[in-house]
C-alpha cells in the first residue's frame, strides 16, 4: 500500500541490516581471498564459525525474551572439558555419542540453574549469569586443569571434513537450527517469548506463563551452549577449560549486529546467525588483508564499532530527516 520506508523495513525486518553487512563483508573477503567459495575454504571457514553461531542462537533467544546469558561460554567450556577428559583421544565412537548426550544434559542443567535463579528467584539476569559464569568456568577448570585430553581423531575428522552434497556440514546444522526456530516462532511458545521480552509484567497480566518462558529460554540457551561446546571440541579435537570464555562477548556482539534489541522483544535468530558469520568473515579479512599486527586491534575495533553503531546512526539520520 504505502511504499516501504527504511523505518518500517528495519522495524519489521530487523535482520535486514545484518544481511547488508554480511554481504558487504563477504564481498570484501572475496577480494582478499578469491578462493573463498572453494569447497575446502568454505568448509574450513564454516566449521570454525559454527561454534559461535550456535552460541549466538541461544543468546539471541534469551535476549529476545528480555534476558541475557553471560555464562554461555563457560557452559561450552564445561562440555569441552567433559568430552576431552571422558572420551579421550582413543575413546570409541560409541563412548563419544554417550558423552555427547551427557553434554546436552549438562547444558540443560546449567541453563536450568540460571533459569531457576532468574525466573523463580527473580534475580537480575546479567548479574546472575555473570556470577554463574564464574562457577561454571571454575567447574571446567576443575575437570580439566590443564589443556589437553581430546576426542578420537576419526570423530573430529568427521566434523572437520564432511561435506554432504558438496556443502559444508555446518550449513546443514545451521539449516536445522533455523528450521526449528522458524517452527518455534510460529507456535504459541514463540509468541510468548516475544511477549515476555516485550514487557514481562504485561505478559504476566495476560496470563502468559512468564516464569516458565523465562526459565525455558535459559534452558534453551544452555542447550545451545552445549551444542557449541560439542562443535568446538570436534573442531579442536582437544580440551581446554578456557576455550569458551572469550566467545561469550562475541555471541552478544553477534546478536546485536544481527538486529535484535538488547532490551528484548525485537528480532529473531536469522539475524544473529548472520551476525556471527560476519564476525568470522571480518576476522578472515583482517588476517588476509595483511594488516600490521598493531593496527589489527584498531581495525577490528573500528569495524565492530561501525557494525554496532551503524543501525543507530542510520536511524538517527532518518529521524533527522523526518
Amino acid at each position: 500500500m504505502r511504499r516501504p520506508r527504511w523505518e518500517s523495513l528495519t522495524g519489521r525486518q530487523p535482520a535486514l541490516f545484518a544481511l547488508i553487512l554480511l554481504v558487504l563483508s563477504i564481498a570484501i573477503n572475496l577480494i582478499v581471498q578469491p578462493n573463498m567459495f572453494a569447497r575446502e575454504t568454505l568448509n574450513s571457514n564454516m566449521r570454525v564459525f559454527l561454534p559461535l553461531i550456535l552460541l549466538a542462537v541461544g543468546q539471541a533467544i534469551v535476549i529476545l525474551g528480555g534476558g541475557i546469558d553471560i555464562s554461555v561460554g563457560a557452559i561450552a567450556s564445561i562440555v569441552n572439558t567433559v568430552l576431552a577428559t571422558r572420551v579421550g583421544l582413543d575413546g570409541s565412537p560409541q563412548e563419544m555419542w554417550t558423552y555427547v548426550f551427557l553434554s546436552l544434559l549438562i547444558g540443560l542443567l546449567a541453563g536450568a540453574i540460571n533459569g531457576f535463579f532468574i525466573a523463580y528467584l527473580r534475580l537480575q539476569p546479567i548479574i546472575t549469569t555473570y556470577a554463574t559464569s564464574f562457577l561454571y568456568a571454575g567447574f571446567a577448570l576443575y575437570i580439566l586443569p590443564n589443556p589437553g585430553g581430546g576426542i578420537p581423531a576419526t570423530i573430529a575428522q568427521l566434523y572437520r571434513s564432511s561435506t554432504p552434497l558438496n556443502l559444508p556440514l555446518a550449513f546443514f546444522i545451521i539449516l536445522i537450527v533455523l528450521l526449528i526456530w522458524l517452527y518455534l516462532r510460529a507456535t504459541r511458545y514463540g509468541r510468548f517469548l516475544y511477549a515476555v521480552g516485550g514487557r514481562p509484567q504485561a505478559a504476566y497480566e495476560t496470563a502468559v506463563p512468564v516464569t516458565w518462558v523465562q526459565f525455558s529460554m535459559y534452558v534453551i540457551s544452555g542447550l545451545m551452549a552445549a551444542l557449541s561446546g560439542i562443535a568446538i571440541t570436534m573442531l579442536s579435537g582437544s580440551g581446554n577449560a578456557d576455550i569458551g570464555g572469550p566467545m561469550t562477548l562475541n555471541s552478544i556482539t553477534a546478536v546485536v549486529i544481527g538486529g535484535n534489541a538488547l532490551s528484548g522483544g525485537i528480532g529473531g535468530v536469522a539475524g544473529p546467525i548472520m551476525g556471527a558469520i560476519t564476525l568470522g568473515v571480518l576476522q578472515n579479512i583482517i588476517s588476509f588483508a595483511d594488516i600490521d599486527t598493531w593496527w589489527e586491534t584498531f581495525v577490528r575495533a573500528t569495524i565492530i564499532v561501525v557494525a554496532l553503531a551503524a543501525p543507530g546512526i542510520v536511524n538517527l539520520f532518518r529521524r533527522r530527516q523526518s
Partner: protein
Amino acid sequence: MAESLSARNIVKRYGGVVALSDGNLDVHAREVVALIGANGSGKSTMSKVINGVVVLDGGQLLLDGQPIRFTSPQVAKNAGISTVFQELSLIPQMTVAENIWLTREPLNAFGVVDRKAIKTRTEELLALFEGTYKTALHPDSPIASLPPDERQIIEILKAMSFDPWLIILDEATASLDSRQVQRLFDLVAKWKEQGKAIVFVSHRMEEIFRIADKYTVLRNGRTVGAGSIKDINEQQLIKLMIEKESALGFLRGEAKTEEKIEKEVSLEVENLTSGTLRGVSLQVHKGELVGIGGLQGQGQRHLLHSLFGDIPYSGTVRLFHKDVRFKHPHEAMKAGVALVPGDRAKEGLLYIRSILDNMLLPSWRRYGMPLKVSNARKDAEQTGSSLNLKMAGLDAPVSSLSGGNAQKVVIGKWLMRNPQVLLLDDPTKGVDVGSKAEFYSLLTRLSEEGKTILFYSSDDEELIGLCDRVLVMHDGMIRTELSGNTLTKENLIAASLGAGERLGGDA
C-alpha cells in the same frame, strides 16, 4: 503574564502517520477551552506541540500575537506553559515532593536543595485535595507505591506548582472520581480568577459543559469547529467529533427492564475478605451487566482482581454453582473469566510489539500449532473495527497508538477470548464518546448473549447509563445496591460518600 496563545495550521507527523494536519487552537487568559475529539484525533499531539515536547512540522504558534518557536519543553516552560500529561510525567522511583518540584527545587545559598521548604510547600499543595486520597499519601511517598488516581493528583499539583499562565489538562479527570473531579474544578475556577488560561481535554461531556467557556473540536488531525460553549449542545458537539453518527442514541441508555432477574445465578460471592476487602457478598446472573461504583480505592479493583485469581482472599466464590478458588489468572482464564485491566500504562500492553500480537496474546491457543496467523489476523481485524480502533495497520506497534486507541487494544484482546464472565476494571478511561457508544452496544450485546459482566467504572454517567444494577462500594464493603429508578446520579454520589442506609427515603 501573557494574554493569549494561538496555534495556527499545525502539522505534525510521526513517521508515516499524520497526527495533526491542520490543527488550530486559541486560548485566552481567564477562560477554559475544551479541546475535544475522538481517540487519535490529535488532542495530545496538539498539547505536546504547545508545550514543546514535540516540534511541529508545519504551522505556527503565536504568543500574544507574536510568532514563537518552542524547540524544547524548557522554552515552553519559560513561556509559562505547563501540562498535565495524559500518560503522566512522574518518575516512579522518586517521591511525591521530589517529583512536584523537579527542575524548580528551592535552593539555599550553596545551591543545595532545601528539603524542608520542599516538604512544606508540598504539604500545602496536597492540602488542596485533602480528604480525597488515602492518608498514607505523604510528600515522601514514592510515586511507584501510589494508585492511579493519587498519581493523577500529583501530576496536577506538579503542573500547578510551575505557576504557569496556561495549564493544559490532558484527560486529567480520566482516573479521578467525582469528588476529586470536583476539587479540580474548584481549582480551575480559582485559576481563571487569577488570570490563567486552561486547555481542558476530556471525553466526558458532562464535565465539558460544567467548566468550559469555549470549545475546539479536532477530527482526524484537523480543527473542525470552535466557538463558545453556550452556543452549542452535546449532540451538536458529538456530531462535529465523529463522522458517522453510529449508535449515538445509546449514549444515555434508557432505563433497563427487570426481566433478566429470573435467569440463573452465574457468579456468587460470599463474605470475600482480603487486605482491603471487608466481607463482600454479591450475586450476578447470567446475561446481567452489573456495575460497581463508589469513590476511588474503596476496594473495587481488589474485588475484581481477587475474582481473577490475582490477589489471595478468604471467603467463597461460586462460578456456575461450582466453588472455585483461582490461585493464578491462568486458572481464571481457563474457567472462562477475563479481566480488562484499567491502568493500561502499567499493565496489559506490549508497547514495542504489534497490535496484532497484543490482541491475540491471550487467544493464541485457538489457532493451532503452528499458528494459523491469517485466521488470527482476520479475527483481530474484526474486533478492531467493532471497537472503532484507529490504527495504521495491525502490524504497527502499540506505541504508535493514541491513548484511547491503546486502551481499545486492551479491551479487544480480552474480548477476543470470548469469555463467559467479563470483569471490567474501569476500561473506558480516555476512550472517546463515539467509541464508548460502540463499546456500550458491544457490552449490551454480550450480556444479551448471556455473558456475565461485572463492570467497575469511575465514570458515574457510564454506570447509570449502562448497568442493570450498580453496587456501590465504600471502605471495602458493598454499602448500597441501586437499580431501576433508585439508580440516579444523586443517589450514586450519596452512596459513594458512605450515606448508604438513608437511600431508600431519598428516592
